[in-house]
Each structure stands twice: as C-alpha cells, then as structure tokens.
C-alpha cells in the first residue's frame, strides 16, 4: 500500500502564454491516485504548479465544462492522440507509455496553454445552416411522421458535441486548405434528414459544393475513428457526396 501511495506520474504539458506566442514544454510530477483522468492531473498541477525543476509557474489553462464526455470542450492531444481529457483515464495512458504528454489541438488557434479557439466549427455550422428555420411563433401543428430507422440515424448524427477531434485528425484540415471539416458535413446530413429541415437541403448542399466543401474530403476516414461520440461521419460524408452529385445533375439538367 505504501508503494502505491508514493508512486508518481511524469506529466509533460505544452504551454503557450498568449495567442500567437511561441510554445514550450513543462514537466510536472504528480502523485498517482487510483482512477485519475487527465482533468484530475491538470487539477493536481493547478493545486501545486511547480515543475520538476522546482520552478513555480502559472496553473495550466484548459477548457472544460461537463466532465462527462458530452460538452466537447476539453479536447486535447493526449499521448499523440486527439481525445477528451475528461474520459481519458491515466492508468490506461500509463499502460501505453510511462509519461503522460498533453498538447493543445493543433488545428485550432491556441488561446492559452491547452485552451483553443474552436469558433471555426461554429462558423461552419452557420455556413451549412445547421438548424431548422421556423418562420412563426404560432402553433403549426404536429410535424411529419419519421420512420424509426431515420430517427435512429439522426440520433447518431445528433450526438456531435463540436469537440474538434475529427478536424484534428483530418489530413485535409490544415492551414493550406479551406476544408470545412467532417463535423459540419455531419450536421448538414443531420438536418437534411429531418423532414422539415429537408426543405432547406438545397442551400445546405450548395454551401458544401463551394471551395472547402464536401469535395475537399480526401477519404482518409480518420474522422469516424477519432470521434469520441461514434458519430457516423464517413456515412454522412458519403450521403452528402451522393446528395451533392444528384443535386448538381438536377440543377444542370432542370435549369
């Protein structure tokens, strides 16, 4: 028992003091406790922000909210993989390698330390009109009946929490490309599957036919594997690929 209490974990954290400034690494040594997650590691650092060299430093800044894999705000690159800090368990990481390494998402601008600015994804939702427009506040009666299969597919797509893991692992999302990323395509597919939302499928598809849209996907299919919510992103990309193909042909032949 005594051995267990004295066990410590080496935690290497990528720091950055402000937007656009150079990043640097700091290493901390944290006492091991059973069932720790990465958030609790960061909390331990905040309680005693002293590096292994004995330097007193500022607590590590990070974004988090729900702490139960629902809000999507604590995405980080942990041991080289994009994932949620809240649902990544330290003992599982230590089984991979002896040191825990935490870096901010690389495809988003760093605000400070591990806290990144994810607003490009919210802008993308506006671009694809990821909502159902309702033009009245009055009662409009019941909506159309939906087949259970469609409802189930839509439920899978609706789990997206805008965490950014799919953009982080996508080789087509980088500073040289305009690719909107899998997340927005998944949400466009979600609202196009809704019987009322389908009435606006045209503008959604056309937004995704522009530069940076669906045709900038490189078919690496990393998104679906990295998604912490198992959103069927490659299915959505395939579906939107089909719908844009048909939309383009229809537009070409009927106008």
């Amino acid at each position, binding site marked *: 028992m005594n051995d267990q209490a004295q066990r410590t974990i080496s935690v290497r954290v990528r720091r950055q003091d402000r937007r656009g400034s150079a990043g640097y690494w700091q290493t901390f040594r944290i006492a091991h406790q059973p069932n720790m997650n990465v958030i609790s590691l960061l909390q331990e650092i905040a309680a005693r922000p002293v590096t292994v060299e004995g330097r007193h430093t500022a607590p590590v800044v990070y974004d988090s909210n729900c702490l139960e894999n629902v809000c999507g705000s604590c995405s980080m690159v942990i041991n*080289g*993989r994009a994932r949620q800090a809240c649902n990544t368990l330290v003992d599982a990481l230590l089984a991979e390698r002896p040191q825990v390494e935490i870096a901010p998402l690389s495809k988003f601008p760093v605000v400070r330390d591990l806290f990144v600015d994810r607003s490009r994804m919210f802008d993308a939702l506006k671009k694809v009109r990821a909502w159902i427009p309702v033009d009245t506040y009055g009662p409009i009666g019941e909506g159309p009946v939906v087949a259970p299969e469609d409802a189930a597919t839509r439920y899978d797509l609706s789990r997206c929490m805008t965490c950014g893991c799919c953009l982080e*692992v996508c*080789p*087509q999302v*980088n500073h*040289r*490309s305009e*690719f909107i990323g899998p997340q927005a395509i998944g949400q466009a597919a979600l609202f196009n599957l809704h019987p009322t939302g389908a009435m606006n499928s045209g503008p959604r598809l056309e937004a995704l*036919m*522009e*530069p940076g*849209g669906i*045709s*900038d*996907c*490189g*078919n*690496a*299919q*990393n998104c679906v*594997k*990295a998604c912490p919510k198992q959103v069927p992103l*490659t*299915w959505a*990309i*395939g*579906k*939107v*690929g*089909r*719908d*844009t*193909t*048909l939309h*383009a042909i229809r537009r070409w032949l009927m106008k």
Partner: protein
Amino acid sequence: MTTAVEAWLRRNHFLLRRLHSLSGMIPIGAFLVVHLYTNSLAAWDAHAFDKHVREIHEIPYLPLIELLLIFLPIAFHAAYGVAIAMQGRSNAAQYWWLDNWRYTLQRVTAWIALLFLVLHLLHFRFAHWIGGPEYQATIARGMTPFDLTQWGFVDGTPVAAWLWVTLYSVGLAASVFHFCNGISTFCITWGITVGDRARRRVFAASMLLGAVLLAWGFASLYALTARPKPDLRLPPQPDARPVALSPADGGAS
C-alpha cells in the same frame, strides 16, 4: 489574369473536383486496363501482341483519340491532382490506420506514377525527341512491335536492362495502386458507397483487380526484357540520323 483564373476555378470548384475524380476512372483508368491487357499478350505470344498492336495503330482518328481521350485527361488529372495534393498534410505516422495509410499512399503513388509516366513517354512514345527512333513510324515500316519494344528495353538506350526493369516495376506498382485505390475513393466521392461495409467490399474488389493488373504488368515486363531474343535489328531510318544498334549482347538474361 491570375485572379480571373482563380475566380473561374473557385466558381467551378465542385465540377472540377468531380471531373478530376471521374477522369481517373474514365478515360485514364480504362486506358490503363486496356494498355496492360495489350501488354499482357506479349507474355503469352509475341505474335498475338504484334497483331493487337498493329490493330490499335489502324484505329481511325487515332491521333485525335490519343489527344482527347488520353493526353488531355491525363494532363488535367495530373495538374489538378498536384494542386489537390499540395493541400493535404499526411498524418499517417501519427494516426496509424489502414485508410489513413491509403490516403498517404494515394498521394505518394500519384507522384511516382507521374514521374514514371514522363519517363515512359520519353522512352517509347516520344523517344525521337531525345534522339531515339520514332517508334510508330518504325512499326509502320515493318518492324514487329514485340521486337521493337524489346529492343527499347535491352539495346535501344544506354540504360541497363535491370534498371529499366526496376523503374518499370516501381512505376507499374504505383500506377496500379493509384488506380485501384482510386476506384474505392471514386465510389466514396460520388456517393456510390455510403456505408462502411459497402466501402470495404469495393476496396477488396479493387485490390483484387489490382492483383490481376500487376500480374499482367509484371508478366509482360518479364517477356519484354528478360526473355532474350537474338539479333534484333531496326530497319534503317529514312531521315539520316543513324541509330546505333548492336546485336543483343547487353544487360539482360
């Protein structure tokens, strides 16, 4: 000017991307299959190969077909493909997934296939640009295509036969992978395969086709390089420049 071209490219972005995808299948991929089929005949029977090549050379409007269905689509696919490849940043070393490696290999093989294609064209189609014989005219004057092709590999150039075999093996493998993996990504891009299982099936089928194409390619490469044929001679060229020809004593076998 640049901005006008850029604006046009952006306005037609979706169409151009889809045409890039389509051109890889039809006509370029189809041409690759036909080309490797023709070559494969050399592995079975030199006479069948000769007969088939002569038939191809007798197709009406051949230069037009070559230009519109082969050269221009390849030039477009290559130029637009280079622009696309410049926008990607592979992370296969970090995210070690098969599909991610396919993404990377698709781009690596594209570069190899493009370099190989230039080499291959200078080797056989436009050899006269760099001092070689005009192959089509030489065939028209009566030399059999099989002998002429073998001459091109074994004696026609100062490049050793084993080096040709190596270059062609790499170029062949890259081209076949790029095309066959391209079949499965074509099906995703156009929304033909939407589900995961459908994609895996198409990928398996495309790799099976790749195995056949590779077998054809390597068999014909073997027949046209390693199988020695004594005493190859080019008929004299009409326009002065003598082509140095020695009896087949060179690198092969």
